[in-house]
C-alpha cells in the first residue's frame, strides 16, 4: 500500500551555536515554550496535516531525542503501517558512514522511503518553531504540477542577504537560487522545507552521491542541479510564524514571543492545531500566598513562592521565597533558591541556583546578552553570573563568572 506523502525530518544538527544547551542534547530536543521540545512542532504539524509516516534522521547526541520520540505515541504516530522511525546512520555491508550532509542523510535512507513507495516526500527541518499546514503546501505543489517546491518566507530586504533566496517569476516558478548573496534579487527566503516528487528526489540524490565534488547538501547541490536541468520548481509562500531557533538569542526571543501571542503570531492556545508533547505527569502547579506571578507561562509540577515576571517556567521548577525571576526561560526541574535573582537568561534543566546568587541582568547600555546555564549545573550561594556568560560547569559559592 503506497503512501501519498511521507516526511523526512532532518534532526542531526549539532546546534553548536546553542553552546551550553546542546552539550548533551541534539538541537531538536532542546526544550521550548514551557512543555515542548523543538521537534514537537514539525511532528505535530505532520500529524495535524495528515502525514502519518515520518523518518527522523539523527546523528549528534541522539540519546535524549531517541528516548523522547519513543514509539511516537504522544504525537499519535504509533501506527501499524508507517508511524515514526528514528533513522541513525547505520552499518552496511560496505561499511558505515556518518551523514555527510543533508542530502546524504536522505540518500542513505532511500530504502526506508522505498518501503512506503510514496508519490511525494516532504523534507523538514528539526530546528524551527513553526505551525504550518503541510497539506496546503502539498496542494500547491500538485496544482502547480511541480517536481520540487520549497516553502519561502518574505524577509525584510536589508536582512535578505543572510538567507538562501528564491528568485521567482509571476507564476511562483523559481528561476534562480541565491545562497546568502551580497546583492539579493529577491526577499523570498527558503525555510528549508521541501516537497519532492519521489522519483525526482531519488534520481537527484543518487546522482549527487555519485559526484565526488558534491557537499551532499540540498541548498548547495541538489537545488542548483534541479535548476540546471530546468525542472518544474515552485516557491510556496508561507506567512505564519516561523523562527529558526539556532542561536541563544533567537531561542530566548522565540520563548518570549510565546508570552505575547496577540502580537507575535505564535499561539500555542490553538485547539485546532495542537502541539503535542511527551507530558511530565506532574501535579498541577502551585502558587503560594505571597508569591507574585505576572505575564508568565507556568506548567505542571512548578512550586512558586517567589516572584516570577515575564518568564517561561517548565515542569517542576521551584522558585523559593524571595527569589526573583524576570525575562527568563527556566527549564524543567530547576530550583531557584531564596533571594536569588535570575534575569534575561536561559537556564537549562535540573540546574540549582543558590541563595542570593545573581544570574544575568536586564539589558543596559553596552551590556546586552542572554546568560545561559547548562543542564545540571550548580550555581553556589552568592555567586554572580554575568549577562554574557555561558556556564556549563558548576560555579562555587561567591564566585563570579562573566
Amino acid at each position, binding site marked *: 500500500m503506497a503512501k501519498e506523502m511521507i516526511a523526512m525530518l532532518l534532526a542531526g544538527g549539532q546546534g553548536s551555536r546553542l553552546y551550553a544547551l546542546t552539550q548533551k542534547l541534539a538541537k531538536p530536543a532542546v526544550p521550548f*515554550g514551557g*512543555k515542548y521540545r523543538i521537534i514537537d512542532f514539525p511532528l505535530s504539524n505532520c500529524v495535524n496535516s495528515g502525514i502519518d509516516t515520518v523518518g527522523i534522521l539523527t546523528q549528534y547526541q541522539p540519546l535524549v531525542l531517541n528516548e523522547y520520540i519513543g514509539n511516537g505515541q504522544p504525537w499519535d504516530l504509533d501506527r501499524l503501517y508507517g508511524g515514526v522511525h528514528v533513522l541513525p546512520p547505520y552499518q552496511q555491508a560496505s561499511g558505515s558512514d556518518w551523514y555527510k550532509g543533508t542530502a546524504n542523510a536522505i540518500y542513505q535512507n532511500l530504502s526506508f522511503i522505498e518501503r512506503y513507495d510514496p508519490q511525494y516526500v516532504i523534507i523538514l527541518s528539526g530546528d524551527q518553531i513553526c505551525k504550518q499546514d503541510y497539506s496546503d503546501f502539498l496542494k500547491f505543489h500538485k496544482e502547480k504540477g511541480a517536481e520540487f517546491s520549497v516553502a519561502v518566507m518574505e524577509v525584510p530586504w536589508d536582512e535578505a542577504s543572510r538567507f538562501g533566496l528564491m528568485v521567482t517569476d509571476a507564476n511562483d516558478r523559481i528561476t534562480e537560487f541565491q545562497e546568502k548573496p551580497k546583492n539579493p534579487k529577491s526577499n523570498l527566503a527558503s525555510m528549508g522545507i521541501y516537497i519532492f516528487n519521489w522519483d525526482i528526489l531519488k534520481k537527484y540524490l543518487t546522482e549527487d552521491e555519485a559526484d565526488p565534488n558534491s557537499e551532499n547538501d540540498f541548498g548547495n547541490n541538489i537545488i542548483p542541479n534541479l535548476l540546471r536541468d530546468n525542472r518544474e520548481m515552485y516557491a510556496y509562500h508561507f506567512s505564519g510564524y516561523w523562527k529558526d531557533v539556532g542561536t541563544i538569542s533567537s531561542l530566548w526571543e522565540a520563548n518570549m514571543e510565546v508570552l505575547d501571542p496577540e502580537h507575535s503570531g505564535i499561539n500555542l492556545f490553538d485547539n485546532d492545531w495542537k502541539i503535542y508533547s511527551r507530558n511530565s505527569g506532574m501535579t498541577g502547579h502551585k502558587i*503560594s500566598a505571597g508569591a507574585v506571578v505576572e505575564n508568565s*507561562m507556568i506548567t505542571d509540577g512548578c512550586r512558586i513562592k517567589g516572584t516570577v515576571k515575564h518568564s517561561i517556567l517548565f515542569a517542576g521548577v521551584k522558585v523559593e521565597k524571595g527569589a526573583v525571576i524576570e525575562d527568563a526561560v527556566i527549564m524543567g526541574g530547576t530550583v531557584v533558591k531564596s533571594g536569588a535573582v535570575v534575569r534575561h537568561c536561559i537556564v537549562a534543566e535540573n540546574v540549582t541556583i543558590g541563595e542570593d546568587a545573581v544570574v544575568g541582568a536586564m539589558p543596559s547600555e553596552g551590556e546586552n546578552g542572554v546568560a545561559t546555564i547548562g543542564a545540571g549545573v550548580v550555581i553556589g550561594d552568592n555567586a554572580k553570573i554575568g549577562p554574557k556568560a555561558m556556564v556549563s560547569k558548576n560555579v562555587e559559592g561567591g564566585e563570579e563568572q562573566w
Partner: protein
Amino acid sequence: MVKSNTSALGILFPNTYDALVPELVNVRLMASIPFASRYRMIDFILSSMANCGIDNISVMVNNNYHSLMDHLGSGREWDLVRKNGGLNIFPPFAEKNSKLYTGRVDAMASILDFLRSQKEKYVVIADTNIAVNFDFNAMIQDHIESGADVTSAYNVQEFPESFLRNLSNDKGFYYTFSIDNGRITKIYVNTKETGVQNFGMNIHVIDRELLIDLVNTAFVRGQQYFERDILLPQLNRLHVHAYKYDGYVARISGMKSYFDENMKLLDDYNLDALFSGSPIYTKIRDDNPTRYIEGAKVENVMVADGCIIEGTVENSILFRGVKVERGAVVKNCILMQDTVIQSGAQIEYLITDKNVLVSHGKEMRGTDTFPVYIAKGHTI
C-alpha cells in the same frame, strides 16, 4: 522504579459510595470525579496498582460509566495495555434477567469464570473513593507473612461526620474494626460512634482460589456484600488480618469533604504526602502551559495546564482549561475543566463542574460550611 513480580490481580469498584455525592455523580461515577486539579479519583488506586506491578486490573463498572470509559481508554496512561492482563472493564452482563450489580459479591460472581482462568495467586480489591499513594506490595507482603486468609487495610482517623449523616443501610456501608494482635475480631457496620476509629479502607488482599470459593458460596445464598455478608459472619472461621495504613488518605464522603480534601492539597505538606511516593498517572489532554496575563493576581492556588488567568484567584483549585477573565475575582473555589469566569464576575466558595460559565459581573457566594455546586455545562 523496579516492579516486583507481583502475583496479584486487581479488582476495582468504581461506583461504590456514589450515593455520598449525588450532585457530582449525576453525569459520572465516583471513579471519574475530578480531583486535585488534574486527576480523577480512580487515578490514585489505578496508578498505585500499576506502580506495584499489578498489571491485570478489572474495573466492575455498574452505571453512569461513560465518563470513566472515556477517561480510561485502553489504559495506556497507566501502562496497562498488556497482552497478558492489562485493563479490563466489566459492565453488568446483559442477559435476560440482568440487573445492575448490588454489591461486590454479585459483581464478582459475574466474573467467576474469568477469575478461575487467571494465574495470579492473590487478588486485591478496592474502591475508588479514596485518593492514596498506596504501596500494595507492602500490604501483600504483610498478607503473606501473617498467613492470613484475608488482609484488610484500615487507617486510624477521626470519623468523618458526613459519613454518619449521609450513609444509611439503603445507601451503602462503611466499616470499622476491632483489632486484637493484628487480627480483626469485630467489624462494625455503619457505626454511629464518633471519634478516632479503625476505619476500613475497603482494600483487601485475598488468595484468588479462596475468593472464588467465598464468592460462589455467598452468591448461591443470595448475599451481596463482601464485608458485611462474607467477612463479618466468618471472623471466627477466617483469619482476617488488619493492615494499618499510615500514609495520606483523602476520602470523599460528601460534598463538603470533597471540597475540604481538595483544599487540603493547597498545603505543601499534604500535597507532598499524597504525591511524593510513586507517580500518579492520568489521561493526557495536551494542554499548553497555563498563561498568566498582565493584571493577574494569584495567591495560594493549585492550577493545571491550559488555563488563562487574567483576574484575581485566591485559595482555589483550578482544573485544566479554566479561564478567569480580567477583573474577575475567584476565592475559595474549585473550578473544574474548562470553567469560564467572565470579566467582573465575583465568586466565592463555589464548586463549578465542567464547562460552567459565570457571565460578566455576576456574583455568587457559598460559605465555608456549604460550598455551592454548579452542575456541568450551566451558565450563571
